[in-house]
């Protein structure tokens, strides 16, 4: 009996360990899928309409692999040159609760892809579409908008702020609203 438990326990453990998140091994075309309009305001004459969602957003948003890739690309594409490690510099801070052009995955994706008029460059044709989604997911994690189970948990570089999986939601800073 004791022997059976000793055998079963590792087997159960192995099975549990096999529960890994899904990952596309073959990303879609570099230039991306459809381009849906992404409003940058909540003010819409005639009442707010539900904004279309991109089904890609959900697959990237809470995915640990994509978040960690986003963190790496954030440095590689020089996002950190303007936005530092989320505190901002030449560009605005990304770790606070203020969103100039919207906080949704779709809005951030559109911001990176198409640029914004006051200085955000357009990275269309420079960054493959899936990597833009990874960047968008990571940007959300900077303000605590990613599950702590998926957000990056370590920083390979000089301490700039606590790791993303420990960042409180910027809107509440860990307090109840």
């Amino acid at each position: 009996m004791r022997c059976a438990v000793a055998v079963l326990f590792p087997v159960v453990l192995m099975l549990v360990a096999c529960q890994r998140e899904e990952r596309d091994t073959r990303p879609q075309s570099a230039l991306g899928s459809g381009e849906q309009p992404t409003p940058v305001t909540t003010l819409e004459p005639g009442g707010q309409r539900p904004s279309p969602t991109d089904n890609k957003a959900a697959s990237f948003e809470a995915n640990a692999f994509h978040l960690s890739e986003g963190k790496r690309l954030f440095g590689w594409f020089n996002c950190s040159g303007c936005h530092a490690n989320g505190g901002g510099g030449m560009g605005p801070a990304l770790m606070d609760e203020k969103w100039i052009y919207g906080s949704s995955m779709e809005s951030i994706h559109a911001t990176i892809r198409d640029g914004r008029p006051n200085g955000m460059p357009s990275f269309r044709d420079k960054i493959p579409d899936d990597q833009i989604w990874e960047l968008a997911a990571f940007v959300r994690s900077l303000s605590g908008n990613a599950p702590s189970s998926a957000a990056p948990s370590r920083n390979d570089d000089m301490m700039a702020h606590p790791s993303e999986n420990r960042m409180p939601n910027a809107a509440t800073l860990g307090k109840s609203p």
Partner: protein
Amino acid sequence: MKQAAQPARSCGDAPLTKRSSAPRKRSLGAFAAMLLVCAPLLTAASESPPAPAISPPAAAAPPDDGQWTMPAKNYASTRYSELAEINEGNVKNLQVAFTFSTGVNKGQEAAPLVVGSTMYIVSPFPNTVYALDLSKSGAPMKWKYEPNPEPAAQGVACCDVVNRGAAFANGRIFFNTLDGHTIALDANTGQPVWNAHVGNINIGETITMAPLVVKGKVLVGNSGGEMGVRGWVKALDAGDGHVVWTAYNTGPDKEVLIGPDFKPHYDTDKGKDLGVSTWPPEAWKIGGGNMWGWISYDPDLNLIFHGTGNPGPWNPDLRPGDNKWTSGIFARDPDTGAAKWFYQWTPHDLHDYDGINEQILLDMNWQGKPRKVLVRPERNGYLYVLDRTTGEVLSAKPYGPVNSSKGVDLKTGRLIENPDKLTGTGKVVRDICPTASGLKDWQPSAFSPKTGLLYIPHNNLCMDEEGVEVNYIAGTPYVGMNVRMIPGPGGNRGAFTAWDIAAEKPTWSLKENFPVWSGAVVTAGDVVFYGTMEGWFKAVSAKTGDLLWQFKTSSGIIGQPITYRGPDGHQYVAVLSGVGGWAGAIVSGDLDPRDATAALGFVNAMKDLKNATTAGGTLYVFRLP
């Protein structure tokens, strides 16, 4: 309480002034030396006051006409006014004459100009120019000019969207826009005369510096040392704006305008195409060396002097070599741009020590011999005295805490690196002083020939640095360094120091809580003005540093104060208030202090600035009642 007007400078009171400002052992010797110097002067010209021991060359600093036509006051860049109505005794009575909103809540680094009865100010992006009529009550607006620069330019401006001022010459106002235009306006009407597009924001090029007009040419340099932009200085024809010459600060000699006239003092600057061979292949094309600071001009020598910015990227592992001609200073012929000499403050810069600070042109006796010198409080922490005819270093003494280097070898002119503070990829080096922003950044100092002192607004900060890998993508940052700054020794993040140039040491120094990011102005009334990032506008005694008067403005001050004689014959003092710039980006850019590396690490040292001041943009003008 009114003090008698300062008597004309006489030989007798020169040593007195010196003694009171510098109570040191050499007083007897100095007195004897002064007597020797003064004796022939007394006999030769008993009526006109004899020249002070250290003074700017007359051709570069003509007698004061009460106007302020360029940010540095004159070609020698003394920022000294001969006006003395406001003096040590009555400055405590100063009150506001009028104010004016620039309408922009970004860092206000510009110097107002006063020409005749009109004041001109240029705002940060969107670079609106205002002309105010000083002859009427309340100084109503005469005209304004909106250049409508490209809004995208804000995204490639390294450290806030500042502008350091305009320049006046021959009935025209010349200024630069953030998106790379130099514009000439009719000073009377505000109508544009010409508009030259010289910078390209798509490679990260912006213009923030104040132009200097020399011999019918408008001298302009670019910004972008954090974006891998190759630095240049251009001379535009003041008449129609066409480019007369362009001198690059990296690359082959032909493009740097190095020719047969180039005679640098030190051997390390001699050789063919050093602007190419001191870099890895092609790296000079994206190597920085931008000219976003100050230019001085000596009409007697027919030379302009300008610094060159930091090499890019900041991570030095990516650019082994001396990285000529970055972080140095050029003397050039203003007619052709041809280089005459060069000196490199910081070869193979490791810490973002741009070499673009102001240079004050002075004539003085140096170790018994009359020398034409150039004084430079440099970003790497040393106060340099150079022979401006040759580029030879006469003196280089630290004017604050420095541990990134161990001095300057006066034989070779070379900065002696501290091996403990070498930065590189994947290595965190702690407690480097001064910071990337330098012991002093762009904020210009002022020199008074009455006291022989240089009044230096500066920082007192240290930093940790870690080099990281970086990719060059045109139009995006090219830095490769994580930085976090901390207050320097003593905890005061700024200081205002009066430096005795002849004695090579400070006479007095005032501690300030925040970096002193404003310029300074000094007057014949022996009053020095500067501002703090909390918003205090201060007047201190030029001799002792005693605080004589202060006024709290609406926002932190990082602008350049000026003083002028108004149409009513009275002396006024003016300054722009409005926090921002690199030091104040946490407020003007609303950055998040929880990230120690925000604003290239400056935010970590300025976490409490948001509680001390808010953004604004207001001109303050003061006068006696």
